[in-house]
């Protein structure tokens, strides 16, 4: 009997909370939301940093070392594209998808799939092809965050470059179709479309 009463009373309180309680709930919810979201974002940003990416020797000794001599690392104007600029989408949805996919890479790390240079080279074609396919599928979105056909001043380009860019644009081609291996060494390309001599 008394138990029923308690439940009833509790139900009533939930159904018609006093305005103070309501305010408190809202306030707590709001604060928790900010903290949670902020923390989430901070950890997302943290895992987009160069130090994070080269925190494991698999990246530091292979792809990072190679990238250091390329134009995306060092150039006349001092603009640098770091790992995440090219390999992690900027939009929220695709970014989450990529980050979740990256959890598979953690297994690779634990299993030591590419923990020597030899193993890395053995897997290089497979990994590169996966990344090319990803870029092809999103129309090289990460390239176009900085380089865009529409914003190119063709008159500043050599005849060679502008003829081909114009042709590519007309044929609906995308950056990665031609610009493979610009920031890292290439794997054996003899069976890759358009490369085998």
């Amino acid at each position, binding site marked *: 009997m008394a138990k029923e009463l308690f439940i009833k009373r509790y139900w009533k309180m939930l159904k018609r909370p006093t305005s103070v309680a309501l305010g408190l709930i809202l306030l707590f919810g709001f604060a928790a939301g900010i903290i949670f979201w902020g923390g989430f974002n901070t950890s997302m940003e943290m895992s987009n940093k160069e130090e994070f990416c080269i925190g494991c020797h698999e990246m530091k000794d292979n792809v990072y070392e190679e990238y250091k001599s390329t134009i995306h690392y060092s150039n006349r104007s001092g603009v640098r594209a770091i790992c995440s600029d090219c390999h992690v989408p900027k939009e929220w949805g695709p970014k989450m998808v990529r980050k979740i996919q990256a959890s598979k890479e953690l297994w690779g790390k634990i299993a030591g799939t590419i923990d020597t240079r030899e193993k890395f080279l053995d897997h290089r074609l497979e990994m590169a092809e996966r990344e090319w396919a990803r870029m092809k599928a999103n129309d090289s979105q990460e390239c176009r965050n900085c380089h865009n056909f529409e914003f190119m001043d063709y008159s500043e380009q050599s005849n060679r470059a502008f003829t081909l860019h114009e042709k590519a644009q007309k044929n609906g081609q995308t950056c990665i179709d031609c610009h493979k291996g610009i920031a890292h*060494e290439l794997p054996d*390309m003899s069976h890759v479309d358009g*490369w085998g*001599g």
Partner: protein
Amino acid sequence: MSTHLHLKSPSKFLKSFLTVIAVCLSFGAFADGTSLRGGVLNEEAPAPALKKILETDGNLDRQFVDQPPLIPHDIRGYQVDKNVNKCLSCHSWKNAKKWNAPRISVTHFKNRDGKVLADVAPGRYFCLQCHVPQVDAKPLIENKFKPVESLD
């Protein structure tokens, strides 16, 4: 015995003495001399600024008929190793048309015995052994080379 020798070879002694003098003098002359790159020879000259690769629309002239044509475009980061030959991704017979690039000529299929192979001859694989890009660097000494009439 030894004194005997000594007395017997005054000209030898004179020769080496003169050589030493000559070497000293020539060093002195060099110390005064200025380098073609500016500055004096016995001081380390500041390294000249790196020059930009010359990029031209169209080809650079050849100076003699057998000259490997000069590369008229930048080649930074172009990978040529056992995995891939970036040059051939544009200049091979299969790919050249797509890139509006000149094809390698038939000579590039011939091995050293003159036998024509099915693909680029090993001796031609490393393009940069013969083909090089240019920078706009003035020659330090005037070059009097004249191309043959048919190319002039």
